[in-house]
């Protein structure tokens, strides 16, 4: 049983790693292999969603790596695997044989595998691992065409922004350990003690908002549009950005346990849905418009998570994944064919490339929230949850829904205009277009578009209550008929107004338009408030390190040298001089002693010797050998002896 879930993760991760390492060597084979792996993964995902496996393995001391597919995860894994398959099938025709296909397909599979691990992880360590690998692969995918410096920089911005938010998860893990949830089980997190409970919640919320490009982190998604369109279709619609919303849906009990987190999350989601919707309206670039709309639509999911609409958020996730990937693929098909993603240049694009045009039209109408298409139903589920929470949230959400209709229709309006006289004048702003769509384009595009149109069935009463049971939220509110009618009316009215007004300039002051077009200048704010101060501090510290810290070491060393020099001087002038003088004194003494030696002692010795010699000589004189003389000597001696005896006595 548990083999299914390990296979679900390891198949795309392993195959992706292998394909990535082969690089461009097997370029002809790679697309087929990549799609085959994706299809197999989809099969495993479907199997997993049926058998609902659960497993775990030891990771750290007392902390396990747990994986499980439950009701919520089942929707996620099937959606992720399905979108991956569609996008890879589309990409098989997008990347020419002169590009490094191994790297692209490999990274896409690794990414998909880590997303699957994210939505099935049951413990925080494994979730964090998958979460961060997703970020790293997104860097490599956004910067896939690395020769253009701005693309590489965009990859850096996206990765660093999301990683900034990811620090929240590290913090949450430590706080969970401190707060008594020592197993770091996701289910155990709400049981942590205060104040750690609040730290965990804050960390999780920040990480989720960052990943989902919610306010104030939204700007990275704008930069991420520098990447290839299939990357946007996978990462920036169905998977990576959705991971944040998923985490909030998964950890709703944690949000509920704190009291403050639910409303905070709900209001952030609602604000993002509205503000980024306005940003989308102001865009003149199709991919930028779609990116802003992704932030906005994810805002609805976050709103659902904050107000307890687990089933509603799941429905929105599935419907949006299909819709937005299809739209990104359509934008990518035009970008490949016409070489541009600028809306004015795309006038009439739907007429020249009809199939893509039809798919785009259906996708755009779905995104607009028009009934009976899927996002209309999904959004009403979300709004019903919001309404149960607070009327203010409902009002903001409804306004955001109206804005969604406006930007969707705006995009549609451009691409369905009659073809201008010289359409090619606006083409090829990004790359040299091929002027045709690849053979692999229609299939995935139509499948996704079809799913986008009909997935609204999930919101029908029958399927809806099934879904609610499956994700474990059976008492969630369903939209009332008047709510459905109101949202449909709002969507139609906004769409009609947008269509009618489309050719005229926006009825707001220019600075506001510029502000909205520049993504609320969020990136500029991040630059001014975070990046530049940190870089300045880094440079200042580097100087400090060289001058002060190392300077102190050098001064100590110099001080040591100076001391040594002084010591040397003392040594030379004092000690050595004293030694020299002592030596000189010694020498003088020695000389004196020598002289004394020569003149005194030695002389005395000599004198003694000379005396002895003299005595010897004197002593020789009596030894004449003549008997008469010896006799005389003996007589004298005897006389002396007699004299002495006489005198002494």
């Amino acid at each position, binding site marked *: 049983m548990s083999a299914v879930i390990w296979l679900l993760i390891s198949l795309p991760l392993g195959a992706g790693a292998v394909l990535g390492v082969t690089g461009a060597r097997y370029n002809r084979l790679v697309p087929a292999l990549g799609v085959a792996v994706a299809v197999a993964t989809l099969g495993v995902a479907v199997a997993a969603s049926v058998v609902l496996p659960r497993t775990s393995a030891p990771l*750290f001391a007392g902390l396990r790596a747990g994986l499980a597919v439950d009701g919520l995860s089942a929707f996620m894994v099937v959606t992720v695997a399905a979108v991956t398959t569609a996008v890879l099938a589309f990409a098989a025709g997008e990347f020419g044989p002169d590009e490094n296909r191994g790297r692209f397909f490999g990274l896409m599979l690794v990414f998909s595998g880590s997303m699957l691990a994210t939505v099935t992880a049951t413990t925080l360590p494994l979730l964090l*691992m998958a979460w961060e690998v997703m970020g790293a692969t997104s860097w490599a995918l956004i910067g896939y065409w690395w020769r253009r*410096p701005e693309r590489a920089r965009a990859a850096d911005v996206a990765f660093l922004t999301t990683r900034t938010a990811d620090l929240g998860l590290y913090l949450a*893990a430590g706080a969970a350990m401190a707060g008594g949830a020592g197993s770091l089980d996701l289910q155990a997190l709400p049981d942590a003690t205060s104040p750690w409970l609040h730290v965990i919640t804050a960390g999780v919320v920040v990480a989720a908002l960052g990943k989902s490009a919610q306010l104030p982190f939204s700007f990275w998604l704008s930069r991420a549009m520098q990447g290839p369109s299939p990357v946007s279709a996978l990462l920036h619609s169905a998977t990576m950005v959705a991971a944040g919303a998923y985490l909030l849906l998964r950890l709703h009990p944690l949000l509920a346990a704190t009291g403050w987190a639910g409303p905070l999350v709900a209001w952030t989601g609602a604000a993002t849905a509205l503000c980024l919707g306005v940003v989308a309206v102001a865009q003149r670039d199709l991919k930028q418009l779609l990116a802003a709309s992704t932030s906005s639509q994810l805002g609805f999911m976050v709103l659902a998570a904050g107000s307890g609409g687990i089933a509603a958020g799941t429905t929105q996730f599935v419907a949006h994944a299909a819709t937005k990937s299809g739209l990104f693929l359509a934008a990518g098909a035009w970008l490949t064919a016409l070489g541009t993603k600028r809306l004015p240049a795309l006038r009439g694009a739907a007429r020249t490339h009809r199939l893509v045009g039809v798919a785009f039209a259906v996708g755009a109408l779905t995104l607009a929230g028009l009934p009976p298409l899927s996002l209309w139903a999904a959004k009403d589920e979300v709004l019903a949850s919001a309404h149960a929470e607070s009327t203010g949230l409902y009002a903001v959400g409804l306004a955001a829904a109206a804005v969604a209709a406006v930007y969707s229709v705006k995009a549609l309006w451009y691409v369905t205009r009659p073809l201008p006289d010289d359409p090619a004048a606006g083409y090829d702003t990004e790359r040299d277009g091929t002027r045709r769509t690849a053979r692999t384009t229609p299939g995935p595009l139509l499948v996704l578009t079809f799913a986008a149109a009909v997935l609204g069935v999930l919101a029908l009463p029958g399927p809806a209550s099934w879904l609610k049971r499956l994700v474990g939220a059976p008492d969630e509110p369903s939209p009332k008929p008047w709510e459905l009618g109101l949202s449909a009316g709002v969507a139609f009215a906004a769409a009609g107004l947008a269509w009618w007004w489309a050719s005229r300039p926006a009825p707001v002051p220019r600075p506001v338009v510029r502000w909205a077009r520049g993504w609320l200048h969020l990136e500029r704010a991040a630059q001014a408030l975070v990046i530049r101060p940190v870089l300045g501090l880094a440079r200042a510290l*580097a100087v400090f390190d060289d001058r002060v810290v190392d300077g102190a070491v050098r001064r100590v060393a110099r001080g040591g040298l100076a001391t040594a020099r002084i010591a040397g001087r003392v040594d030379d002038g004092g000690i050595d001089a004293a030694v020299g003088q002592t030596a000189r004194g010694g020498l003088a003494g020695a000389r004196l002693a020598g002289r004394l030696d020569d003149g005194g002692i030695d002389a005395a010795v000599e004198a003694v010797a000379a005396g002895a010699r003299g005595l010897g000589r004197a002593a020789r004189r009596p030894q004449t050998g003549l008997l008469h003389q010896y006799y005389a000597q003996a007589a004298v001696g005897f006389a002396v002896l007699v004299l002495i005896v006489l005198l002494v006595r």
Partner: protein
Amino acid sequence: MLSVITFLPLLACALLLLLPRALADRTYIRVWIATAAVDLALVVAVWIDFDPGEGMQYQQRVRWIPSAGVGYHVGVDGLSLPLVALTCLLFLAVAVYSLKERQRVRGYVCLFLFLQSVSLGLFVAQDLILFFVFFDLSIVGMFFVIAGWGHGERGRAAAQKFFLYTFIGSLALLLGFIGLYLAAEPHTFDLVDLTRANPLAGRGPYAGLVLLAIGVGLAVKTPTVPFHTWLPPAHTDAPAAGSAILAGILLKMGTYGFVRIAMPLLPGSWRQYALVIVVVGAVSVVYGALVALAQTDFKRMIAYTSVNHMGYVVLAVGAAGTLAGTDAQARSLAVTGAVTQMVSHGLITGALFLLSGVLYDRGRTYAIDAYSGLAAHTPRFAGVTAVAAFAGLGIPGFSGFIAEFQIFTGSLASQAIATAIALTGILITAALFLRALRSMFLGVPRLPRTVPTGGISDLERTETVPTVTLLAVALVIGVVPRWLLDVIEPASRTVIELVAR
């Protein structure tokens, strides 16, 4: 067995010196590779036979200077065995990388063999004086490597600074050791005996002074802020192989000293001054990362990231000494993370320094802005460096994450603010590695003028094999860490118990 592992390289070194000079350069390196491979195989055998629950194993005691309480005592436990294995692996990698060395190869090989013996000896030493002897000899060996094979005159100046600075640090260490010796009754330098005796329990200021001496000695070697300024010049001007060993092995001698000597032998003072240690660790993390961010020289930048990475270790061991408001699981997690970080940093930074050697070999400069779009000319080099950089910035799937996650999770409970500040370190390292990758490897291809007209060549096999092997081991630890953690965890629990007494 341990003595064989330790002195095998030294034996090979002696043999090479005895042999006639006429041998070819490659022969010397091959002998070195063979020796390192045999040594690694022996360590693998020890690892397989090692029982993590048994504590100190493979012990050997020989009388050495009994009158001074000094003995030849070696042994391994879960703290030292991973570092012994890392030493053998890294030296083997460096040996393969050195196959292209052409400059006075005989002396070069002998020095590295000597350094390997010294490093292994330090990690298995269970006697303070034995530890100290190897500690000092490592400084001597590395001095000659930097001075002899470094980048010219600057290399000699850096070697001198390195030698004097770390030598003074080792003197402080010796002072501390003598302090321990004098306090023990009977006087001894034996680590196991001293650990059991806990001679400085309740000795107040005296114990504090001993910890200060030992702490400063180890902090210089580690290095932590503010004792780190010998590191950047030593790394920048050392040969790539020397940098890899210096960062990968020699720095670990400092951090290993904390868990092997300072924590178990001075538990009371360690707990008392844990906050100081934590602050030093957190400052090293953030300061090292920020200063690295401002560097314009690739190798110098990596050198500063070592300060950052070693800062995590110091933070963790400091937090493990804080008993208030934390359970043993968290503290043991922190120590396990610290030891894992030592291994991980050796693997990843070792690979990064070898790669920076490739960069210098091709372009004759480390300046980041001298290069652009290198990936166009050297795709394999770019790929391997990118993987190493991501491993270095702690991406899951590599050993760095396994280490840092445990450090953060284990430290936050007892030292919440310092740990939260240190968390920003992983963000700053991410920024600096990405910036370096982007400016050197991505964008429009542009080479420095110092590159010869023939262009620039991609990684050769002698460069690919060692770097990819090191990263592969880091990957294995990152994906299936249990085989390593099973060895470390019992030992770190022991350390925690010793600190808590």
